[in-house]
């Protein structure tokens, strides 16, 4: 939990940002304290990835303030930041073993020889063990499943002692079991004190499991616990489409307002 004197992990105030002349995000105010786990949801083009790129210093900021741990974000991101990209953005046929891929997280700070030291190997193995994939350390990364690949990327970000993790669509293109796996892993990392900010298209996933959601559509539409944020009004403002919100105890489930099933002709019966 963040102390009163500690600056927030993420601090955005009045931010206008984008690429070239086009502003993708406008008037963004967002504060994430150390130790929080926050999911950012929104439709395609809402600015989710731009928000992450703003935090990594890649998107152009036209106005406002962007700070990580109290320091202005410049072209050189802070040491405490770890980025986990989308699985599909990498070439998984790249000739690396799992341990080598994780060790690359230490490349910026390592010695001037072409190999990693024994202590660095031990750090990588400890991280692989923590994430439950030490047994795959010597396998080519091309042989891994989606969930294992996700763990390798997390290990690469964490091996450098990052205490703020940014994840871009961590559940994109993975099956339900892997999604469940990734979620619990993130929960454990967050319980260990790592601040996590992730983007996702998967509304029900974040609505069910994350303590805080930010609905984004070029600006912050709503921000807070899922039970408060996930409302029909907010979803219309965020996605521009009507959705039904079902409350199930402490969690909420979102379904399409007009499901296709029931409006289509019935499938032929086997009993004919």
């Amino acid at each position, binding site marked *: 939990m963040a102390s009163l004197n500690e600056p927030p992990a993420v601090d955005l105030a009045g931010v206008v940002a984008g*690429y*070239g002349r086009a502003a993708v995000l406008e008037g963004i105010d967002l504060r994430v304290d150390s130790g929080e786990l926050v999911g950012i949801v929104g439709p395609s083009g809402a600015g989710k990835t731009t928000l992450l790129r703003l935090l*990594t*210093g*890649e998107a152009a900021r036209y106005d406002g303030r962007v700070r990580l741990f109290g320091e202005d974000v410049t072209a*050189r*991101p802070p*040491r405490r*930041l*770890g*980025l986990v*990209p989308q699985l599909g*953005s*990498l*070439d998984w046929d*790249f*000739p*690396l*073993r799992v341990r*080598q*891929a994780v*060790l*690359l*997280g230490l*490349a*910026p*700070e*390592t010695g*001037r*020889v*072409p190999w*990693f030291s024994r202590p660095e190997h031990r750090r990588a193995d400890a991280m692989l063990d923590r994430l439950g994939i030490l047994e795959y350390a010597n396998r*080519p990364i*091309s042989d891994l499943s989606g969930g294992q690949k996700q763990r390798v990327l997390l290990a*690469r*970000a964490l091996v*450098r002692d990052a205490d703020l993790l940014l994840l871009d669509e961590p559940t994109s293109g993975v099956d339900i079991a892997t999604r469940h796996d990734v979620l619990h892993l993130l929960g454990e990392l967050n319980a260990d004190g790592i601040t996590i900010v992730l983007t996702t298209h998967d509304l029900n996933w974040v609505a069910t499991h994350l303590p805080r959601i930010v609905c984004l559509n070029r600006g912050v539409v709503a921000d807070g616990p899922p039970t408060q944020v996930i409302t029909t009004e907010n979803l219309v403002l965020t996605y521009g489409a009507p959705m039904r919100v079902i409350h199930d105890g402490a969690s909420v489930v979102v379904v399409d307002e007009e499901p296709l099933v029931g409006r289509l002709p019935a499938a032929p019966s086997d009993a004919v």
Partner: protein
Amino acid sequence: MDLLVEPFGYTFFVRAAVAGVLVGGMCGALSVFIVLRRMSYIGHGLSHAVVGGVAIALALDLGLYVGAVASTVVAAVLVDRVGRRRGLHADASIGIVTTALFALGVLVVSRLPVRVNLDAMLFGNILAVTTQDLLVSGGVALGLGLVLLRWWKTLVAVTFDPDVSRVHGIRTAATELSFNLLVAAVVVASIRVLGVLLIAAAVVIPGAIGRLVSRSIGTILAVAVGVGVGTAVVGLFASFHLNVPSGPSIVLVGAVAFVLTYGTTAAVSAGRLRQVRLATRESTT
């Protein structure tokens, strides 16, 4: 046996062999990153840019290397800058910059009274390897070796994932520009042995062969350097005995090595698949 010993009786061949080993090793080492970065076109482009630079330098009586270095450095920097513009990728950048420099060179050659031995420049000539060429090749090889030793991990990290490497604190822009300049230096050092038209193949084939036989980047580097040196030596012997230009000879040896490796690895994969199918059938019956 005479076929192997006889060429070493000639000083020019000894010089060419030394240059060939250096050039083959350098091209092999760089080819790993060129293949992994999917920039196979860069060797082709930079070698074309050399023609422009050399023509202009000779017209101004500045010497071959001055023109070659100037044009490849300008091309490497421009390729890097143009390729960073949103919406343009490396292939478009290479195509525009290097072809423009090539066109400039052709224009200069056509307008000024410059005498250039185009055959030797385009296809390589082992008779023409001078002590100065050896010094250039040796210097570039030494520099490349030191860079790879010092920045190996950085290069691998940036090649695998440039975006995250930057966020994690690596100066990716400087790394990528330095890599392009390294390719430019190797292209310049390879002109005499390989010729500008054939450098492109020499900076791709060894890495491609390494990629076929291994899934570990360290092993791929070792294989690529070995293939680069081996094809250069065999190609030089063929060039000597068959009295053909050294560039095509080296590249053809490399192409044959690639075909053989491709066939062998495909046969090995098919054999493994057959074994798995047989084992599966036996276990189900």
